[in-house]
C-alpha cells in the first residue's frame, strides 16, 4: 500500500487525531466503545487516503458543496429573476457573462451556481430515501423467516423488474410538479438493489455466533436488528449511498429535462431543457448547453469516485480506483 501524495485541497482537518487511548482497563464501557469507534474511523481514513480517485472525489464534493452554499454571495440573490435580468437574450460569452446569457438575459454562470443546490439537495434526499427503504426492507427480510420475508422479497423483485426510469417518469407525471415529487419518484423506484444487497449482508451477519449469543441472552428481534445487524451493514450501506446519489443526480437531471421538475426552480436538467427549447442546439450555442452537462457529470463522478474508494476499503480484493 503506497502512501500517495495528497492533493493540496484536501482538508487535513478530517484526519482524526491519532491519540492512542492509554490503559483501557481504567475506563468505562462507553469510553471503551468510543475509543474503539474513533480508532476504526482513523483506520478507515488511513485506508481511504491511499485511493487517489477517492480523494479527488472528496475534494470535488467539498468544493461543489461550498459553491452551492455560497450561491447568494457569489451571484447575488436576484440571479434567477427573469424580470431583473442584466443582459440581452442569448449573448455569447463575454467578460461580464463568462458563459453567456440565457433567453431571458440571465447569466448562465449564475444559473449554474444556483443549480448546484437543486442537484445536491435532490441527490442527497432521494438517495437517503432510497437507502432508508432499502435498508429497512433488507434487514427485515433477512432477519425474519416465514411468509412476510417472502412477501417483502416478492415486492422487491417486482420493483426490480420495473424499468426504473419509466416508473419514475410515470410517478413524476402522476404527481404535482415539485422538488418533493422528484425526490419521491427517484427514492421509491431505486431502493430494491439496496434491499437485495442489505439482505445478503444481513443473512451473512446473522449466521455469526455472536448473534446466537445475543439471542441466548434474551435479545429480542428489535435489539438484534438495531444493535447487531444494523452496525454491521452500515459500511456497505454507506458505500451504496454514495453510488445511489450519483445515479439520483442523473435521474433528477433527466426528469427535469423532460419537463417533469419544478418549473420555478433552476436546475441543471431544467437549464438543458430551456436551452433546447430556446433553439440553442440549432444555433450552435455550445456555451449554454455544455456547462450544465459538465456540472452534472462532475458531481455524479465525484460521488462515484468516493463510493468506489469506500467499497475498496471495505473489500480490498476489488483493488479498484487507485
Amino acid at each position, binding site marked *: 500500500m503506497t502512501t500517495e501524495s495528497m492533493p493540496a485541497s484536501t482538508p487535513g482537518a478530517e484526519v482524526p487525531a491519532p491519540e492512542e487511548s492509554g490503559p483501557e482497563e481504567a475506563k468505562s464501557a462507553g469510553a471503551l466503545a468510543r475509543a474503539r469507534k474513533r480508532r476504526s474511523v482513523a483506520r478507515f481514513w488511513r485506508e481511504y487516503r491511499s485511493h487517489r*480517485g477517492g480523494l479527488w472525489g472528496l475534494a470535488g464534493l467539498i468544493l461543489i458543496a461550498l459553491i452551492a452554499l455560497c450561491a447568494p454571495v457569489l451571484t447575488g440573490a436576484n440571479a434567477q429573476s427573469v424580470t431583473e435580468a442584466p443582459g440581452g437574450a442569448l449573448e455569447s460569452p463575454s467578460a461580464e457573462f463568462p458563459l453567456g446569457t440565457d433567453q431571458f438575459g440571465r447569466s448562465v454562470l449564475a444559473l449554474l451556481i444556483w443549480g448546484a443546490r437543486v442537484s445536491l439537495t435532490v441527490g442527497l434526499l432521494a438517495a437517503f430515501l432510497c437507502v432508508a427503504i432499502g435498508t429497512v426492507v433488507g434487514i427485515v427480510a433477512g432477519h425474519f423467516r416465514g411468509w412476510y420475508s417472502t412477501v417483502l422479497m416478492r415486492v422487491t423483485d417486482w420493483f426490480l*423488474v*420495473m*424499468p426504473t426510469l*419509466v416508473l419514475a417518469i410515470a410517478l413524476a407525471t402522476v404527481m404535482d410538479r415539485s422538488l418533493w415529487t422528484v425526490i419521491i419518484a427517484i427514492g421509491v423506484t431505486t431502493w430494491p438493489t439496496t434491499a437485495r444487497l442489505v439482505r445478503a449482508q444481513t443473512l451473512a451477519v446473522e449466521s455469526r455466533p455472536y448473534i446466537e449469543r445475543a439471542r441466548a441472552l434474551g435479545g429480542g428481534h428489535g435489539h438484534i436488528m438495531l444493535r447487531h445487524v444494523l452496525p454491521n451493514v452500515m459500511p456497505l450501506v454507506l458505500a451504496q449511498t454514495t453510488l445511489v446519489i450519483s445515479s439520483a443526480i442523473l435521474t433528477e437531471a433527466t426528469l427535469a429535462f423532460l419537463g417533469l421538475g419544478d418549473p420555478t426552480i433552476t436546475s441543471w436538467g431544467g437549464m438543458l431543457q430551456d436551452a433546447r427549447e430556446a433553439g440553442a*442546439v*440549432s444555433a450552435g450555442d455550445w456555451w449554454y448547453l*455544455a456547462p450544465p452537462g459538465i456540472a452534472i457529470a462532475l458531481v455524479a463522478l465525484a460521488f462515484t469516485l468516493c463510493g*468506489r474508494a469506500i467499497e475498496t476499503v471495505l473489500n480490498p480484493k476489488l483493488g479498484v480506483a487507485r
Partner: protein
Amino acid sequence: MTADSTPALVKQADAEGPAPAGSPAVRGPRARNTQAYLKYVAAKIFGAAVSLFAVLVTSFFLFRLIPSDPVKQMTGGRPVSAEQLDSLRRQLGLDQPMWQQFTSYVGDALTGDFGTSFQYHAPVVDKITEALPATLLLTGTAYVLYSALGIWLGTRTAWRNGSKSDRFNTALALTLYSVPSFWLGLLLIIVFAVGVGPIPGMFPTGGLESGNESGFAYVLDVAHHMVLPVITLVAVGYAQTLLVMRSSLLDEMGSDYLTTARAKGLRDDTVRRKHAVPNAMLPTFTLMFVNLGHVVAGQILVETVFSWPGLGGLFYQGLSVPDLPLVQALFFVFATAVILANTLADLLYPLLDPRVGR
C-alpha cells in the same frame, strides 16, 4: 447486479447432493438432472407469469392516477359542448365504474388488444408494432457494440491491473458513465450535425431517414442517421459492462487454478482466454441480460433528442397528452421485455454454470 443471481446460486449449492457413486443405473443422475431442470424451468416460467400479471395491474392503476382529464386534453381547448364531452367519454369507456374499466382492460389486454390511442385515433398495438423495428435497430446495434466493447476493455484493464492503460480506461469509463445521455446527444448534434467553428455539420440532426432514397442508398442513409445516436448510447452504456467484467475478473485473478494453468506452461494469453475469462463471465452475463430487456424499453431520452421514430419517443409523446391507452401499453411492453430477458437468463444459467438449477 450480481446480487440478483446470488440467492439462486446459494440455494442451488445446498440442494446439490453427493453423486451416488457406483449406483447400478448409470443414467440415473443425468435423468434426475433433466427432471430437476424441468422443475426449475417450470418454477421460473410460473414466476414470470405472475410478474407479468402484476405489471398489467400496475399499468392500469398507475396511469389512472394522472389527475388531468384526457377528454379535455383531447379537445385541446376548442369550444365543445358538455354533451359532446360526455359522448366522447362514453366512446372511450371513461364513464364506466373503475372496476368495470379494469376487468375490460385486463380481458382485452390478454387477447392482445390495448385499445385505441387518444392522439392517433389508431389501435395502440399498430402504433407499437410500427415503432418497434426502429427501436430494435438503434438500441440493438448499440447493445451489441457496447457489450462487446465493455467485455473487451474490461478484460484488458483487469489483466493489466494498475497499469497506465488500466487507469486511463477505468477513469474514462467512469467519466462517461456519469454523463447524462441526452446531454451527450445534444452536444454531438451541435458539434457534428450543426457544426461548430471549423467543424462542418457532417451528420443529420435527427430522424431515421431522409425520405427520398431506396435500395442500397436507403440502407446507407439509415446508417448515416444512426451514427450519432449509436455513438451516444455506446459511450454512455459500455462503462457498466467494463466495470462489472473488470471486477469479476479481478476476483478470479488470485485463484489457484490460474497458477496451476501457468505452471503447466500455458501462454499468458491462453490462461486469460481459456481459463480466467469464462469463469468471470457470469456476472457480466447477468448484466447483459438485464440490458437486453432494456433494448426494447429503448432509450426514451436518446430517441427523443434525436427524434428517432421508436418506442421511447412514442412514450414521451404519449405522456405529454396524456394518451392513456398508449402509455399503459408501452409501460406493459417495456416491463414485459425486462421480465422475458430475466427469465431467459434464469433458464440459461444452469447450462452455463452447472451449480445452478440442479
